């Protein structure tokens, strides 16, 4: 229950932010931290709670992004209507990858590789197909109206991303307090034992990847609405896949607040790096890579794990 209260408090604080802060820079920072949190929450669902490490989560991000963008650009569908459709597309992609991978018993490194391969296949396809605008990508026409999910000020986008991350928080909390979550954790820790205890391992993993994909595709939809643009490299390239896993690893796998902690710390690290090293491309990513290695080597349970250890 304390966790629910913490979630509520955080949501409230974030919602009140625009009332006290009007700097575009600060609001953008908050939005990017929440966006990064959402990516992490999606990945964390499958990896932290479910124990399946995907290296190609961009697959679902890109599917959601392209679905939403294409519906708006080619068919003039309203952005709010496109949102659930895009999420459904993302979930379907998740179910597809899951059905195929889990049916054939892919785990660990093999699963990571297969997700990477799927993302690459889609990237190449998106690059060659007209529907996605090919290599040029899709540009969303500027509308600047809440009715089209393009808000005139940053505050609107902040509330949108906050709503999505709230769904992520509640979903993670639910996993810690539900039967499905218990099943998922059992599958993560020992598939054989879980099966012997009556858990339908395949169905549980399938549901987990579909949920994870749904959340990830929501992030993709947000990206398109905020940046108005999507192309194959952004949609399906390794950058998003890496960003999704960095947060939870740093913040703490399989925890409710891990993705948020990780996103905040990484954003902070990024800002510090930018101040010290200027705008040289790649420097902040070097720092992130070192952070990744460091966390795995010294703090495998992440920052949340450190906090838990201190308080016990």
């Amino acid at each position, binding site marked *: 229950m304390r966790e629910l209260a913490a979630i509520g408090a955080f949501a409230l604080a974030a919602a009140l932010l625009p009332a006290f802060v009007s700097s575009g820079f600060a609001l953008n920072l908050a939005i990017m931290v929440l966006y990064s949190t959402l990516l992490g929450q999606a990945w964390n669902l499958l990896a932290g709670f479910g124990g399946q490490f995907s290296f190609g989560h961009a697959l679902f991000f890109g599917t959601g992004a392209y679905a939403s963008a294409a519906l708006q650009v080619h068919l003039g569908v309203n952005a709010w209507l496109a949102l659930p459709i895009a999420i459904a597309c993302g979930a379907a992609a998740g179910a597809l990858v899951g059905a195929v991978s889990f049916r054939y018993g892919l785990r660990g490194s093999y699963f990571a590789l297969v997700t990477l391969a799927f993302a690459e296949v889609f990237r190449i396809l998106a690059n060659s197909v007209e529907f996605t605008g090919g290599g040029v990508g899709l540009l969303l026409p500027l509308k600047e109206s809440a009715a089209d999910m393009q808000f005139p000020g940053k505050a609107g986008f902040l509330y949108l991303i906050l709503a999505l991350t709230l769904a992520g928080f509640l979903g993670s909390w639910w996993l810690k307090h539900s039967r499905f979550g*218990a099943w998922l*954790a*059992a599958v993560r*820790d020992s598939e*054989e034992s879980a*099966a*012997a*205890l009556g858990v339908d391992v395949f169905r549980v993993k399938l549901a987990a990847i579909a949920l994870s994909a749904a959340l990830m595709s929501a992030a993709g939809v947000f990206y398109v609405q905020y940046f108005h643009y999507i192309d194959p490299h952004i949609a399906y390239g390794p950058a998003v896949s890496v960003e999704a896993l960095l947060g939870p690893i740093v913040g703490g796998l399989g925890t409710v607040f891990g993705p948020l902690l990780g996103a905040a710390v990484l954003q902070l690290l990024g800002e510090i790096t930018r101040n010290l090293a200027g705008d040289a491309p790649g420097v902040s990513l070097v720092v992130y890579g070192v952070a990744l290695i460091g966390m795995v080597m010294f703090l495998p349970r992440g920052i949340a794990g450190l906090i838990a250890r201190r308080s016990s």
Partner: protein
Amino acid sequence: MLEADGLSVRFGGVQALDNVSLAVAAGSITALIGPNGAGKSTLFGVVSGFLAPDAGTVRFLGADATGLAPHRLCRLGMARTFQIVQPFAAQTVRENIAVGAHLSRPSRREALVHAERIAAQLGLGAQLDKLAANLTVAGRKRLELARALATGPKLLLLDEVLAGLNPQEIAEVLPVVRAIRDSGVTVLMIEHVMQAVMNLAETVFVLNEGRLIAEGPPAQIAGDARVIEAYLGHGASERLRRAALATPVAASGDAHA
């Protein structure tokens, strides 16, 4: 309760099970023994759905259960433990057992409560909040047992639940197994610890090199020549008999004279 009929399993060049048939009566404690490599765990694997037999059938509660997936068998009332225990290491004892409890309890709260009940039954009450990774071998074996019990099974398959325990620990587990049977659960156990087999089992099945070589009450099995030879080698039964005839049985004090 459980009937295996003509089960055969082949791994490459090895016939792990060769036309094995046995029946487990409801409400009994039945033991499955045999030297290493006899096929006992293979039999468990087939019965519990982890292995598909090349031939033969398994009937559980009167219905065909051959080749059913483990989780489905569990839902029908068959639970098992593993020889090499695999606790959910990152979770507490309570959470571990709760996974089993969830089989028939969708509510998280109810499952956790039932887990506490089972833990108390098996003497794990004091360790409910301990991480499974921090338990001793004996503790982990009990946890394995508790998890399976939490599913509310009708038939419990115990795979060497006493392996790795010292005599004191074994003595503590025996009444637990008996209590489980007394509460209405049929028990089929693979065991190497003969003390437990003699003590607990009503019927004993003996496997050797994939084949069933003897079945019957423990006392009868202990004297069965084929069983002795399976464990001690060809001709052992005869040698033992001749040795017993050659040296007269002396009072315990004389042996050191």
